[in-house]
């Protein structure tokens, strides 16, 4: 608490009351933020610099920050050192199916919880939220057996089919919160015009819900693209591996022997799509995941 108080005093609690603040303080704050941002972003810079180094440079003591010359040949070398092309295709397939299934079904469920009446609605919603507390392993061990008996192991079905059934507690929660903020009068007017629940959902609620659709789709993308637990349990055959799984497996199998410049190259391939997506939808994503919908920029 003392740390919090001290930090708060320095920073000041209320936004918008710094109009008369001296330039010196503003400069000091900029300097602090720039320094901190540099520290936070340094690991990504590090990844980039390692991906362009010679093997010798990556293990030089003391370490160097930037390669003496850019070794672009690392990229094809690393990419061809394992079937990463296949892993990438697998990841794209799994992620696309998951995003579509999760976003669509979460939107339906969220609308049901937010706008429609049925017995046990609140109890059901609480149960959905409570699943957040359930460790994956409680369900994964039986699911492994079930999917094995169905012959689904080493297929993408265990990773994608469940997404079509609700898309996860957080996605449903976000849609529900968002639909609750839409004015009820819209529904009422549509009902007078003879619209049914599906038409209200499809032609009134959904077109107004771009921010939350983007937020849920992005979060699902990130979850699926980076998932490791599901793939290492359900996918044993190398030809079925996802990109994250491929990197993790190669990294663990060759730990210490694999050249770090190659690891950095593959890691970058894994990191870049989420970063690009984040850059594109950053504003909607932050607005979507912040409680009380305060997505306005200060």
């Amino acid at each position: 608490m003392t740390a919090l108080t001290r930090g708060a005093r320095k920073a000041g609690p209320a936004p918008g009351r710094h109009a008369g603040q001296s330039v010196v303080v503003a400069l000091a704050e900029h300097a602090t933020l720039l320094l901190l941002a540099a520290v936070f972003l340094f690991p990504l810079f590090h990844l980039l610099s390692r991906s362009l180094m010679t093997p010798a440079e990556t293990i030089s003591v003391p370490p160097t920050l930037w390669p003496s010359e850019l070794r672009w040949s690392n990229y094809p070398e690393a990419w061809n050192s394992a079937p990463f092309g296949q892993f990438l295709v697998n990841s794209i397939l799994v992620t696309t199916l998951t995003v579509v299934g999760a976003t669509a079904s979460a939107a339906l469920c969220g609308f049901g919880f937010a706008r429609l009446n049925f017995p046990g609605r609140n109890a059901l919603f609480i149960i959905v939220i409570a699943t957040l507390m359930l460790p994956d392993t409680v369900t994964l061990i039986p699911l492994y057996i079930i999917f094995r008996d169905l012959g689904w192991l080493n297929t993408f079905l265990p990773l994608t089919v469940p997404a079509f059934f609700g898309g996860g507690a957080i996605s449903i929660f976000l849609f529900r919160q968002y639909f609750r903020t839409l004015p009820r009068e819209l529904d009422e007017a549509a009902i007078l015009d003879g619209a049914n629940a599906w038409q209200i959902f499809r032609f009134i609620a959904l077109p107004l819900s771009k921010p939350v659709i983007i937020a849920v789709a992005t979060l699902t993308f990130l979850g699926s693209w980076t998932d490791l637990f599901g793939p290492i349990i359900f996918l044993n055959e190398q030809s079925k591996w996802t990109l994250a799984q491929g990197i993790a497996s190669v990294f663990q199998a060759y730990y210490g022997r694999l050249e770090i410049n190659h690891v950095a190259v593959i890691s970058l391939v894994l990191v870049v799509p989420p970063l690009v997506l984040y850059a594109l939808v950053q504003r909607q994503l932050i607005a979507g995941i912040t409680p009380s919908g305060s997505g306005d920029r200060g």
Partner: protein
Amino acid sequence: MAEFRPDVPRAADRRTSAAARRRLREWLPGLLFVSPVVIGLLLFTIVPMLTSLYYSFTRYDVLSPPRWVGVDNYARLVTDPTFWTSVGVTVRYALIAVPLGLVLSGLLSLLLNQALRGISIYRALFYIPVVVPAVATAVLFSNLFNVRYGLANALLRGVGLPEYTWLTRPETALNSVIVMSLWTIGGSTIIWLAGLRSIPPYLYDAAAVDGAGRLRRIWHITIPMLTPVIFFNLVLGIIESLQMFVQVYVLTNGAPVNSTLFIMLNIFREGFTHFRMGYASAMSWVLFLAILLLTLVVFKTSGRWVYYEGDRS
């Protein structure tokens, strides 16, 4: 669960069948809309949960059918030193990483709550590590932490501090995992910021009129108004840290000498490396009950320290 409205189940027994049909017509759209999650809960959560509970009372190696052993698995947990090691690792991580992350993200949010030019760019920058895949984060930090040619030690040498042993020694490996976890505090910072911005300025103005100094305003306005945010971040932090898996699986796989063997890693090993599914299920259930209990305790005590303003929803 207590919010089940008592009049609802009885509604089906209403006098006329016409009324019942009308009710059904009214409810049908809602039931259809939530049917994906109802089916999903049933197929992918509730049935597996009950199966897992059953497995936890059996010996099951996947190849031969499960054999009932009563509470043997749970009894074995009590005396299994590896299990207690993993509990110790997870609890120590949660006790240090969660409060530390909470305080640091809180401080960061205060810094990011300034009316500075370009502040929204800074806000976006600090969230970037959150979108970096955990596998890549682990690979990255494994390189930074390398004691010989890693940059972490180079930095320490540079500022004249002694080198650290990072992931190579059991005493320091868990601390390294905690350091790595702090890279992603941008996630809770976003929640803090939303909380800070929802504090109505008139509260500060009123306090200033009453002659309250800056410190008193923070103590009596900012912190009480932020208790829901602290609460939210605390609950999420606990749940997440108890289920820590991917980063340590890639970074250390539990090494050195089980000093980073988180519970989830232990369960994964028992279940999917040694194929002791019954034992792994018992462990999963203990973890689930622990998470449930902790969350309930936080919720129960929250009435004492969490302040919800008026009846804003």
